[in-house]
């Protein structure tokens, strides 16, 4: 898809540089002349949004790290000092905390876009896998980061999740002690989580570069799921077409971001984290941040501890192999009426799993005669569907579905939309 470079250095300096380090050529080929399908809709702006989020988190994070103290006696106070004394500290902290949530909102939209339009299918399997890897690194980064303010949820969330590793047979106990650096979550744990929280975003940035490279090799998918046939008819150069459209999409996203930072900065968080960590007092409900809730629900739905851990990680692992589970020859759900319905069911299931993760497991949702239908019962049904969707439906639907006729080409589909 990258094709031949059309960059032409215009003056002496750029010619000189191009012969020594063709960075301007690379920039031009990647972000100016790079061809994108002309029928991309606004769901395709979220890649740019995600890059913006990563940049915001890294910049605000580095600046916050100038004031944060990674010691259990001082961490909570140092965060409050940032909020109260550091110039614009309140702004930096709220941007960073809410930025994490915005990052996950964007990544979920981005992933569901991929699921809907079949962006994970050949030849974009490696692109998809790199994306799953970014998602995994994001969850690890967010987990480490949430521990740092050393509130009740920071401490107890860390305790619960690190305790899970203890469930692994044979090596579990040693692994858990090794992660803790002690006999419980404490100073060594906090310090190393700070180091890793600083490191991981740069690993993410590295994988993002690979992700964009893989993308540029195959080119973008598009809403029709039909490959580019004629570069001149089907594509437009990235600049100015995609640049300005991404900027517009980003500005709308920024409005949502600003709403949270300035008018509801604690709405997505937990009040319990404004209480300093106390190893001797467990909060009534231990709940992770909202973006981890679906996996938390799956973990708690399984009665056996080890099986719960396996299924929780399995829920993420299954994403990596989607390209090979899906047997459909048609990419886009636009032309897959049956898959489209199950896609939306899956979206609802994921949202509902998230809801379950926030509830107390024994809460009764409905009384069915003598038996109370609890959150756990619901979570089990939903988790079963989650796995069913990928492991059974993906292979099955491709074989039995009657797909709609595909458009001839991207340009044909664009012209078709007009008439």
């Amino acid at each position: 898809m990258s094709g031949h470079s059309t960059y032409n250095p215009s003056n002496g300096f750029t010619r000189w540089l191009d012969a020594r380090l063709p960075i301007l050529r690379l920039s031009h080929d990647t972000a100016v002349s790079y061809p994108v399908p002309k029928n991309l809709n606004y769901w395709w702006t979220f890649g740019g949004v995600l890059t913006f989020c990563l940049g915001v988190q890294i910049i605000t994070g580095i600046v916050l790290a100038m004031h944060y103290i990674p010691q259990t006696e001082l961490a909570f106070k140092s965060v409050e000092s940032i909020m109260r004394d550091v110039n614009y500290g309140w702004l930096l902290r709220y941007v960073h905390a809410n930025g994490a949530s915005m990052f996950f909102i964007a990544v979920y939209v981005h992933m569901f876009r991929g699921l809907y339009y079949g962006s994970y299918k050949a030849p974009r399997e490696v692109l998809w896998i790199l994306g799953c890897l970014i998602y995994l690194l994001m969850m690890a980064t967010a987990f480490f980061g949430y521990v740092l303010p050393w509130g009740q949820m920071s401490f107890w969330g860390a305790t619960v999740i690190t305790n899970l590793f203890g469930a692994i047979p044979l090596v579990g106990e040693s692994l858990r002690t090794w992660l803790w650096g002690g006999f419980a979550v404490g100073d060594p744990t906090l310090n190393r989580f700070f180091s890793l929280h600083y490191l991981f975003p740069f690993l993410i940035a590295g994988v993002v570069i690979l992700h964009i490279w893989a993308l540029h090799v195959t080119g973008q998918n598009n809403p029709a799921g039909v490959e580019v046939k004629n570069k001149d008819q089907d594509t437009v150069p990235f600049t100015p077409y995609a640049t300005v459209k991404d900027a517009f999409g980003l500005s709308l996203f920024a409005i949502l971001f600003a709403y949270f930072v300035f008018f509801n900065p604690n709405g997505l968080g937990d009040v319990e984290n404004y209480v300093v960590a106390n190893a001797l007092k467990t909060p009534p409900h231990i709940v992770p941040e909202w973006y981890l809730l679906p996996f938390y629900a799956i973990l708690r739905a399984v009665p056996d501890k080890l099986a719960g851990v396996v299924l929780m990680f399995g829920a993420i692992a299954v994403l990596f192999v989607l390209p090979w589970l899906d047997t459909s020859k048609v990419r886009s759900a636009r032309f897959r009426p049956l898959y489209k319905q199950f896609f939306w069911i899956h979206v609802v299931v994921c949202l509902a799993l998230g809801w379950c993760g926030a509830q107390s497991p024994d809460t009764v949702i409905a009384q069915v005669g003598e038996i109370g239908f609890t959150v756990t019962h619901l979570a089990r049904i939903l988790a079963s569907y989650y796995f069913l969707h990928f492991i059974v439906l993906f292979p099955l639907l491709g074989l039995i579905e009657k797909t709609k006729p595909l458009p001839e080409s991207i340009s044909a589909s664009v012209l078709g939309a007009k008439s």
Partner: protein
Amino acid sequence: MAEIHAAEPTRRDFLYVATGAFAAVGAAAAVWPLIDQMNPDASVLALASIEVDISKIPVGQEITIKWRGKPVFIRHRSEEEIKAAESVDIAELRDPQTDDVRLVKGASGQLEKQWLVLIGICTHLGCVPLAYKGEFNGYFCPCHGSVYDTSGRIRKGPAPLNLEVPPYKFVSDSKIQIG
């Protein structure tokens, strides 16, 4: 792209220039907090100014206190020290300053000649000089041998400037506020 489009600004180009300018203003505004957060925060600024009770310092002695992370000498000068400081020929000094300009008026409106307040950092390479040492009974810096007089002015040795006088004022006869 510049080669393809016409050189005269069209309405389209104006929109792009306006967009770019508007975005640039926003970016600049967004950058400011990132820079300002490195400026001293409120808790540091709260320590920027301190009050010192000088009533317990006897004549002919001095104390050293910490202000903004630096040592500050507060010396209760005797009559001899004041006279010695005033009878120096200014033209001979490396850093010419009269004793008077290095002092501050008290609550009464008169120069408080008995009180000398200096930042205790040698102007050569930053060591802390020793009090009541050296030929002039002022200060002597052991690092490279700078000698200061009873007004804290450099008289001998490699230091280029007199010991710095911090901003201070008399809150009352027994209290000064530094910074």
